[in-house]
């Protein structure tokens, strides 16, 4: 589903070239739950941005569902982001003046899904994160954990194949963080690919594979057995 080969990303700022990725190679199959870990500045966020079509690489190749990013226009990337990818950010990125319903509906506004079907999809997505009683509450009035669950509902509403999460528990207390991770786990069990960037080991161990990035290259890439012990500790 995802194949990266010798992926490179360089930034040129004020005549100084920063090499964020120096040649990353791996592939991810449909249905995997992958954590990308690394210290800050390691390039893990850059990698996630490229994987999620928010940015383009400066070298190497990236194929998503068999299609190379280099062959796609910005418009096509936007379309794929809309229909095949879901996003969850550390800082939620909700429009705070809109209600939960309106926030979750946003991706559908840019999709080809007819408006008659939307209400159902939005309600279903909100229900799947357990916020049906907050459906018409303004996003600004929610707690951090609730906000992140709204963001997950927004990521789910177009029924994407893969969900990208960038430090989804970074702004949450451990209790809310656990709830959010359990939602990701459940989504993965239903067959969705989840790709998670984090620097917290406990969060990363919800996955069944951990790719460690350091200084722009893959340091290690290991399958793990999700450790119930950590979860108990978190609880």
């Amino acid at each position: 589903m995802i194949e990266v080969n010798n992926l490179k990303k360089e930034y040129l700022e004020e005549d100084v070239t920063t090499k964020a990725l120096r040649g990353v190679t791996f592939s991810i199959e449909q249905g995997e739950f992958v954590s990308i870990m690394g210290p800050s500045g390691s390039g893990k966020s850059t990698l996630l941005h490229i994987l999620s079509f928010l940015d383009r690489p400066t070298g190497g190749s990236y194929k998503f569902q068999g299609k190379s990013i280099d062959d796609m226009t910005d418009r096509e990337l936007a379309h794929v982001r809309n229909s095949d990818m879901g996003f969850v950010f550390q800082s939620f990125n909700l429009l705070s003046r809109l209600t939960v319903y309106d926030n979750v509906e946003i991706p559908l506004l840019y999709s080809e899904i007819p408006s008659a079907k939307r209400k159902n999809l939005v309600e279903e997505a909100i229900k799947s994160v357990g916020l049906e009683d907050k459906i018409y509450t303004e996003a600004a009035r929610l707690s951090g954990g609730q906000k992140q669950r709204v963001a997950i509902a927004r990521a789910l509403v177009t029924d994407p194949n893969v969900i990208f999460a960038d430090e989804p528990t970074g702004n949450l207390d451990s209790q809310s963080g656990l709830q959010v991770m359990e939602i990701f786990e459940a989504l993965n069990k239903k067959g969705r690919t989840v790709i998670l960037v984090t620097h917290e080991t406990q969060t990363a161990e919800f996955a069944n594979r951990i790719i460690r990035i350091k200084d722009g290259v893959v340091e290690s890439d290991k399958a793990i057995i999700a450790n119930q012990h950590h979860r108990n500790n978190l609880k």
Partner: protein
Amino acid sequence: MLYKDAFKTATRSLTHGKMRSILTMLGIVIGIASVIILMSIGQSAQNLILGQVQSIGSNLIIIMPGAPTNGKFSSPASSQGIIITSLQQRDVDDLQREPSVMAVAPEVRGQASVVYGNNNVSVGYAGATTDLFEVSNLTIGKGQKFSKSDVDSANHVAVIGPDLANTLFGPSLNPIDKTIRVKNISFRVVGVLSKGGTGAFGVDMGNLVILPITVAQKQLLGMNYFNVIIAKANPNYDINFAKSRITFSLRQNHGITDPNKDDFTIQTQADILSLLGNITSILTIFLAAIASISLVVGGIGIMNIMLVSVTERTREIGLRKAVGATNNDILQQFLIESVLLTFVGGVIGILMGAIIVILIYFVLSTFFSIGWVFAFPISAVVMGLVVSGVSGIAFGIYPARKAGKKNPIDALRYE
């Protein structure tokens, strides 16, 4: 993105900052309102002026001595004080035989002091035939007009304007059959005009003395030509046909073969109307052009606020792009917002303009008793709507493009 959704998204973000949206619109509201008000006032003034000209009579042909000048806006030599004797009794006789002309009224004009008892006023007088009353739509309030035989036998009779009657005789005395002296010649007043006001050529009808043309020509002015001939076209004929017949007849009488050497000028009322219409239209356009400066200022205000809004909502733009909005979706959203601002501003401006125009009309007609014609041209409304919509696009396109081009990653990271 569907237009319905784009529209909903735009209205939502505008209503979230109501105060800001209202203040932003204010520039456009004032601009459109002032354009509407000035166009309406211009139109009203035009109607008022043209209405006065039309009240002289719609099928009049005015023949003046002297060659026509080339410029549309300059007057013939005769009206600049140069004595030209080309219009003679023979011309009048010939025109009276012309079937396309219904009535011919030759006129001479002068200025004289008019005396009754101790009252002495200097006024304009006109020597005329009885046809003048017909062609100029003059009606008699008291007494009667002088007769054809008065003209033929050069009787010393006079018809005077109502204001003059009041000055000479006061409100109680009946002017009829009183004797007044014009240039020291005695005239018996036979009639008083029913109303004053300004007549053709700006003549003050209220203070006019009308005498038989025979008396005025021979005894007051000592001349045998006319200052003007007013002809009334036969309604069964086209007025331009009558005009061409008159031209032909006069050229023949005056032995003119080269049309460039005419010694007379013919104007129809339509010529005068189109001239005045041109002048007032230019004035209206001029006024509207000045008012539209405020529209440009309002438009720049909108651009300014939209730019601020784009910067403020950078993260929103990033998020929308991340979940699938294309550059065009974002551009469209911001463009709809600015067009909506200007369009709603335009509608409010039109309504405000209409209210102010009605107030002006009310004040002028109630407190100043000016016969102001209420005019609210549809063209101004259409123009107001189009201009406000277009300025929304013109001033919104730059901020909207800026929003659309934002890189999603940078936008999401924006603090």
